[in-house]
């Protein structure tokens, strides 16, 4: 568990560095907006699909990586997750984790 925490910490630093250096200051927000069609604006769902707002970053990253690997059954997310890089998944998960869950 301690090992896991350290790893996540490293990932956070990597993501934060990428965020600071990227020419798009709103990259995480902009990628996350693409999820809103089904998961609600700022990740607050209107029902039927899970809210992403306030979801733990680790949980969201883990689920997306399972979808991407095909180890988590789904109708759509297993196909969509494969379109995102690991860096994009980290960014977007961090952004949703910081949103208030209404």
């Amino acid at each position: 568990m301690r090992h896991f925490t350290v790893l996540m910490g490293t990932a956070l630093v990597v993501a934060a560095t990428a965020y600071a250096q990227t020419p798009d200051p709103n990259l995480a927000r902009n990628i996350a907006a693409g999820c809103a069609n089904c998961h609600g604006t700022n990740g607050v769902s209107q029902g039927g699909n899970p809210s992403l707002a306030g979801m733990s970053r680790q949980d969201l990253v883990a689920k997306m990586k399972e979808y991407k690997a095909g180890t988590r059954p789904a109708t759509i997310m297993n196909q969509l997750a494969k379109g995102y890089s690991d860096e994009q998944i980290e960014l977007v998960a961090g952004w949703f984790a910081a949103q208030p869950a209404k």
Partner: protein
Amino acid sequence: MSIERRDFLKALGAGGALAAVGGCATPGGTRVSGKVVIVGAGYGGATAAKYLSLWSNGGVDITVIEPNAEFISCPLSNLVIGGSKQLADITVGYDGLRKRGIKIVRDTATAIDADRRVVKLAAGAELPYDRLILSPGIDFLWKDVPSLDNPQAQATVLHAWKAGPQTVALRKQLEAMPDGGVYAISIPKAPYRCPPGPYERACQVAWYFKRAKPKSKVLILDGNEDVVSKKGLFMKAWNEEYKGIVEYRPNHVLIDVDVRTQTAKFETQDDVRATVLNVVPPMRAGNIAQQAGVITANNRWCEVDFLSFESIKVKSVHVLGDAIQIAPAMPKSAHMANQHAKVCAAAVLQLLAGQPVSPTPIITNTCYSFITDKEVVHVDSVHQYDREKKTFLTVQGSGGVSSAMSALEGDYAFAWAKNIWADTLT
């Protein structure tokens, strides 16, 4: 935006410092001002208005020009034609946008003066803009179906390819049709709005016939060589769920109709007489796009810079949704229009602030089709911007279709509608 603000940003310099400032300003949004006029409050225009407001914390002055009093969704409108939903179920008002301080003007944009940066309205007013966003949807190339090039004929042989009165009228024609009749739908050559839409409509009409008029037939007269979207899934539905009801005929390029006898005429194939003839005519970007001079591809579609959705031809004019010349494998869909609008809104805010637009946009598509009133199939895709090719490319290995129709996906389809309507309109 004020000069002071611009100088302040300039003083900060480019790159890291600005990114850091911008980063601190999110997720509440950057403080930007300016005047943006949006033409069309469908999935593209309404989403652009909402996100410009959200991401500028109401700092941008937004006016939307829309001739219709309410938003009526094209997705799910085939369920109204099939009879399992009513028009009211797919109608949403614009009060959610108004509550954000967005002005909705019920009028039609008739002309753009790009030099003076004003939009002229049918009622006579002129609206100035710093940035103009056109999301005009589609209009039809009636000259390609000469006998339909008049309002009387268009009220008889319906398209129902814009949700609203035509949707209800087509439903009424089907209700009035005696059992044993033939409903025929003519599909134009791709690209057209909503690639799987005609096939979904055939399924919905067949669903209605199977229960209410079992001796009736559905005839699909496709101008394309083959089923354009979700082929395996639709073919399975027609061969199983709707066996003996639906017949698919490829290579039927429509050249005209006989309105009185509801007869479709083709380039090479024999005439087809139907009881209810439904023609989806060839189409292009909506009328205002033509007037604005932003149609640059095949006299039909608007080419844009995919980083901002700004027209390649007319400065400070952006185009969204079905009206654009699409990148490869990028469908003309509602979901896509919503996604275009977010890339555009983010870019417009950057441009109003004198800042560079994001070089790495990513958009997705998700599209559900109803086979029955409850059972659904999907297609989805992910498109990342390619710097060298200057276009969106689908990510290798991503996206796909359903393995089979299911009621679970039906639930997801209704959840999609609920969420995208709120995301677009509130």
